[in-house]
């Protein structure tokens, strides 16, 4: 509060002033340049401190735990037993981890492809509809979007319930008599199918509505110019619409990859990773090993490996975001 006058702040490192390429000539820019010193850091401090404390510390702690032999006994007695890379050795040489990793990647891929394809199609559809019909569909999308995850997964359990579930009833009615009492959560693939449907259902609105919003920003002149050049509908789509939407599709795809990869809640609430742990994806696997079976150190190692995989994906995404940010600053 003491720092903001129209004069140069009395304290604070002077190089801050010149950090953006030296002192600026007069005018309004200059006054912007003067609003430096410690103030911005003070304003940022609470946000940075709580983030480092509550996000950074668990991350570091996770790393520390992953080098410990921490099971029920050590946990209760508050013992710290270091065991070096043993957890990692065990995880990486075992079959389970690789199986779950492969499953996670396949699961993410199938989900994201479906979400992006269907979401994009619905987004383009929104752009083509008349005003009334568009509002109608938007309302539907928003309703699906707004459903809380745990509520939605409870509803999906009811839709796919073995007895009196409406899905089985419909399937039986349209000729699949054997489906009348089908237990969807009894096998790996059918459980995954229910989870997949749940995730796709929840995710389409985000992609579709955002994509539609993006299409509304495409300048009409581009289409006019294209049709003057004799481009047909398909050509206009590939030459105008798609290139315009591309950055947007990239960003959305990466977000969906990250979200689906971490889809703990959906998998866990539908069937807790079962039957026989066959639908565990990495976050669920880490949780069941760590919390469920009380191999905390082992769970932490799996968690860290999961984070590394996630970072590899994220870094790719971040580079795109970074570029955008550069253009803007």
């Amino acid at each position: 509060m003491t720092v903001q006058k129209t004069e140069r702040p009395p304290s604070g490192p002077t190089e801050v002033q010149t950090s953006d390429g030296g002192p600026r000539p007069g005018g309004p820019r200059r006054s912007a340049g003067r609003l430096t010193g410690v103030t911005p850091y003070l304003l940022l401090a609470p946000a940075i401190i709580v983030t480092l404390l509550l996000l950074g510390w668990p991350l570091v702690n996770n790393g520390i735990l992953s080098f410990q032999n921490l099971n029920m006994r050590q946990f209760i007695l508050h013992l710290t037993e270091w065991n070096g890379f043993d957890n990692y050795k065990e995880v990486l040489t075992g079959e389970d981890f690789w199986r779950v990793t492969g499953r996670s990647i396949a699961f993410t891929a199938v989900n994201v492809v479906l979400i992006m394809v269907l979401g994009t199609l619905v987004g383009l559809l929104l752009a083509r509809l008349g005003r009334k019909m568009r509002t109608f569909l938007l309302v539907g999308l928003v309703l699906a979007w707004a459903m809380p995850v745990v509520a939605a997964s409870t509803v999906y359990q009811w839709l796919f319930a073995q007895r009196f579930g409406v899905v089985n009833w419909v399937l039986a009615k349209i000729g699949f008599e054997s489906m009348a009492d089908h237990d969807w959560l009894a096998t790996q693939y059918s459980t995954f199918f229910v989870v997949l449907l749940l995730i796709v259902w929840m995710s389409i609105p985000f992609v579709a509505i955002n994509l539609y919003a993006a299409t509304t920003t495409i300048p009409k002149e581009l289409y006019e110019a294209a049709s003057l050049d004799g481009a047909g509908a398909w050509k206009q789509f590939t030459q105008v619409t798609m290139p315009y939407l591309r950055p947007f599709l990239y960003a959305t795809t990466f977000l969906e990859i990250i979200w689906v990869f971490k889809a703990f809640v959906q998998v866990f609430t539908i069937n807790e990773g079962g039957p026989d742990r066959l639908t565990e994806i990495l976050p669920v696997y880490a949780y069941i090993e760590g919390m469920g079976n009380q191999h905390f150190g082992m769970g932490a190692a799996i968690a860290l490996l999961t984070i590394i995989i996630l970072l590899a994906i994220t870094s790719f995404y971040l580079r795109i975001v970074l570029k955008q940010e550069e253009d803007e600053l």
Partner: protein
Amino acid sequence: MKRSLMGRLWPNLVAVVMFVFCVFPVYWMFATAFKPTGDIIAEDPVWFPTDATFEHFKTAVNADHFWTMAGNSLIVTLLAVVFSLIIGVTAAFALARMRFKGRRGFIIGFMLAQMAPWEVMVIAIYIIVRDADMLNSLIPLTLFYMVMILPFTLLTLRGFVAAVPKELEESAMVDGCTRMQAFRRVILPLLAPGLMSTSLFGFITAWNEFPLVLVLNKEAESKTLPVWLSSFQTQFGDDWGATMAAASLFAIPILILFVFLQRRAVSGLTDGAVKG
């Protein structure tokens, strides 16, 4: 002529199918919640609850600890949102309006924080909270939810602050306001819509959070509604009427918020989530 009719018909048809796909689960939840049990376990589904009953809602509300957990959810969520708004708006102001060393680094840092793998860190968080002797307390939940929603709040608000013309602030300062006063009297009121929409998204995130509370708060008195709902489902197993009533009760606040939010939803999310 015929072709253009078909050309107009098809998108509308697909739109109707898509609408049904989106809405049916939501509809089925509410419909089941209002149906008498006899209708729920009828041989053929009853598509519309003609004899609507509040029986199932009574079961849900009277279930153990419903009100405690609803209160917990509300307290934790509101506090997390308010704290992250206070912390977020000051930081957003700095990031949007000031030039200083490391500014870009901070922005990138918060973008990274926004993608934090909370779902994977539950074990580490559990150990930390246990060592702090804070299991079954609402305090750690509030703090973690605050940090969970902070990056989004902050980055989105940065966009809103940047959209306020600098001249407004400058002219207020020419009129003798300090920077803080200019911020409070001129910018903050203009930020109201931004604060609204970011806090609604924060509310939704915190209201929905499941893994952390599942792990940290095992005692009934300290749980929140998502955990209540998932355990309710296990407990009431085949009582789908009560389960759907419970799910409805949990979903209604969010559905209502989303109606308010709808207009802002698109730009808010694209700015906040996709871009940063």
